[in-house]
């Protein structure tokens, strides 16, 4: 009996081994590559065009690769009839020319590796600069896989160059007439008290004074950022299909840029990053709780950190990894986890909003830029505040907290550190706080006059300004090598499970250092140096004895409206080209093929051929505002119109030169 059993056991052992061998054999197929022989000869075939094209047809040979086109820039003449012969060097790509090929939704041109695709003949009858874009998702940087095609003579470019000069001169002629306290013809003294506007004023006031307001607007963004983190960790490794990338770096980013202009720091009103810490510390989600009973350590914020430096440098650091940040879901997910964690902890150790004032990279640039906003939270009548001794807006009342941003709301006259939490609207017993709409740039002159040692704000300006121009070149320019440097040559997207794919090679790291030196060098050194030189010249030309340092710092505030318009231009470009991604992401947050809301959109750029002109126009508006702001600042600092005008004319030269460079990047 027992013998039989043993044999049976052995038999089953043999069977197991057999099965195991079989399994290994079948698994081994995974390790044997299948290589098709015909893939190598494609290059020769590609260049030996077998067709006999008619004489009037030009054949242009293009090689698509991750993530660009070779040649990067193609020039044709107006009226040329062109056939494109395209191959792919690596994976499957697509092909789309702004304004010339049909919408990718109707007809998608696919370039499979190993095949030669012929497109055309296309007759180039509209002059200008157009983008060649990849229309098939081919990897993490696919959205920025672009090349240029110039249809000469590029009249629109030349007319925009002339237009830039003309508007620059016109602005100078305008300030020559000595407009006092005006911005491009509009008085800076005129303000609209939004909460007293008939109709919407009282309604808005009730909403803003409602204690539940902050929570009500914050909660949706908390929910959205929770999804951002989950999607960033487990969703599709390809960025444009992942909620974390599509919603944050397309929708959120663009909305914040427009908000800065139209609604100041409204993002900070709804920001979920420090909210959890704030709720824990206050032990309230909506209501007001006595500060003495807070759950917080209430340590003192170090004085040396009580400025914008940390936030500005963190913003620059983020910019150094921007090609990863905006294309790799896991990097975005991690960033927001870290920001929420730090924001929460710092609120409990160092309440109230020291994190927002000095650490948050978004807070730094939003705060800085919002000084060009038409929106502001201000006292109606400062003299009432002066006389009112109780100062509930600082000390708090049962209706509202004292300003969590450590400001004296009744007296403040700049947007930088006002997070628009509207606590002062609630706490002020005299109903003296309100929202004021004013012309762009109202506060710049007096801010600049005070800026004796505010290098932090000046450098935040330089960083923002240079990056705004630079990013257009990096993300929408033809030079794929710049993107590749910043991308460390990594061709993979990643979520948490595949984060190891982001390990760069040695060459990638070396290239990244080149990129980092280039970005940081331009933003921190080169442009500030140029700006300083111009400031020095304007001091000489104005014949003033103000120190150059002071002039230099003060004039840097004139960049703020310029920055806002350059970044708005970038945001417009992102939205027009990629609008489909964020909308679809709400229906399919993880990029798994869901259709929760019943809609999905395919990538289909919205009139992308208009982008050069829209972008150039926005930069020209920014330039005009910058020139006029310089004048307003100079007038306040140097006293007298004459000196101010002479100083302005020197700085105007720099602002015009940059606008010309920008026009060249987008249209030339």
């Amino acid at each position, binding site marked *: 009996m027992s013998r039989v059993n043993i044999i049976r056991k052995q038999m089953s052992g043999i069977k197991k081994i057999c099965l195991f061998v079989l399994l290994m054999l079948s698994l081994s*197929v*995974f*390790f044997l590559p299948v290589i098709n022989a015909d893939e190598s000869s494609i290059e020769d075939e590609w260049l030996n065009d077998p067709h006999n094209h008619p004489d009037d047809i030009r054949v242009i040979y293009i090689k698509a690769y991750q993530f660009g086109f070779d040649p990067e820039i193609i020039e044709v003449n107006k009226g040329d009839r062109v056939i494109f012969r395209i191959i792919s060097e690596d*994976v*499957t790509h697509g092909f789309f020319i702004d304004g010339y090929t049909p919408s990718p939704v109707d007809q998608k041109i696919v370039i499979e*590796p190993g095949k030669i695709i012929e497109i055309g003949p296309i007759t180039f009858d509209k002059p200008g600069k157009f983008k060649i874009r990849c229309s098939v998702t081919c990897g993490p940087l696919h959205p920025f896989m672009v090349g240029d095609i110039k249809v000469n003579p590029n009249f629109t470019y030349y007319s925009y160059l002339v237009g830039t000069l003309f508007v620059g001169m016109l602005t100078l002629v305008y300030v020559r007439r000595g407009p006092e306290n005006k911005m491009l013809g509009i008085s800076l003294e005129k303000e609209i008290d939004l909460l007293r506007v008939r109709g919407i004023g009282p309604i808005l006031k009730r909403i803003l004074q409602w*204690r539940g307001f902050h929570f009500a607007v914050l909660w949706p963004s908390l*929910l959205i950022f929770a999804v951002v983190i*989950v999607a960033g960790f487990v969703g599709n490794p390809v960025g444009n299909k992942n909620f974390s990338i599509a919603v944050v770096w397309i929708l959120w980013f663009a909305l914040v840029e427009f908000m800065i202009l139209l609604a100041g720091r409204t993002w900070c009103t709804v920001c979920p990053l420090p909210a959890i810490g704030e709720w824990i510390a206050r032990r309230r989600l909506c209501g007001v709780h006595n500060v003495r009973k807070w759950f917080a350590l209430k340590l003192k914020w170090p004085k040396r950190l009580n400025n914008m430096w940390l936030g500005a440098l963190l913003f620059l650091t983020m910019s150094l990894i921007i090609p990863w940040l905006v294309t790799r879901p896991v990097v975005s997910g991690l960033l927001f986890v870290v920001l929420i964690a730090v924001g929460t902890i710092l609120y409990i150790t160092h309440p109230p909003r020291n994190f927002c004032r000095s650490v948050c990279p978004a807070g730094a640039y939003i705060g800085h830029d919002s000084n060009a906003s038409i929106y502001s939270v201000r006292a109606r009548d400062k003299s009432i505040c002066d006389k009112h001794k109780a100062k509930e807006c600082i000390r708090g009342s049962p209706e509202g907290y004292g300003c969590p941003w450590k400001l004296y709301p009744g007296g403040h006259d700049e947007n930088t550190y006002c997070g628009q939490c509207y606590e002062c609207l609630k706490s002020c017993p005299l109903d003296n706080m309100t929202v004021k709409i004013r012309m762009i740039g109202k506060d710049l002159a007096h801010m600049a006059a005070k800026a004796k040692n505010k290098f932090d704000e000046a450098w935040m300006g330089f960083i923002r300004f240079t990056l705004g121009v630079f990013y257009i070149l990096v993300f929408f320019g033809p030079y794929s090598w710049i993107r590749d440097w910043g991308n460390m040559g990594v061709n993979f*997207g990643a979520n948490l499970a595949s984060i190891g794919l982001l390990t760069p090679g040695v060459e990638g790291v070396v290239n990244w250092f080149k990129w980092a030196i280039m970005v940081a060098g331009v933003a921190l050194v080169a442009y500030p140096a140029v700006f300083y030189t111009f400031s020095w010249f304007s001091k000489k030309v104005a014949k003033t004895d103000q120190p150059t340092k002071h002039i230099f710092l003060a004039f840097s505030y004139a960049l703020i409206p310029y920055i806002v318009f350059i970044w708005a231009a970038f945001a417009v470009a992102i939205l027009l080209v990629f609008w489909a991604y964020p909308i679809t992401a709400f229906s399919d947050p993880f990029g798994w093929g869901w259709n929760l809301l019943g809609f999905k959109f395919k990538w289909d750029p919205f009139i992308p051929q208009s982008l050069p002109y829209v972008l150039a126009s926005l930069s020209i508006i920014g330039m005009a505002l910058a020139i006029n702001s310089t004048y307003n600042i100079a007038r306040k600092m140097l006293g007298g119109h004459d000196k101010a005008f002479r100083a302005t004319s020197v700085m105007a030269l720099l602002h015009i030169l940059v606008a010309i460079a920008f026009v060249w990047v987008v249209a030339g």
Partner: protein
Amino acid sequence: MIYMNRGIFWEIVALVLTIAVIGTVSLPLLDNYVMPEKREPNTILIRAYIQESGGFDPGVIRVKKGETVKLVVEGMDVVHGFKSEALGIDLGPIEPGEKKVVEFTPKEEGVYMFECTVVCSPIHHYMRGIIIVEGE
């Protein structure tokens, strides 16, 4: 009657809403309900990622001899292909976001290989999977 301060009432509402946010971590679980292919009988959803990110998911598929099954291959990241010579299936290129469907009835038991036919990554040649046809 319990008297409740209106302030406390709203705090509790807000607290419940805030805690509800944690529920988003379970969103990925919805996959089994949201994707029709995961609910329908005799339907198998295969997601195609580049091999570096896991390749075909799932890569090992079990079907029953004689039973008709529907394979739905979904492109996830870049363009892939799906081909099984032994089973006579070739779906051609599948774009990201696109789904291609094939129905077949396996006649013989055995292990059949399928592979990606479009160069999709440096190790594309390893992107493949197996279909195991089992007897009743």
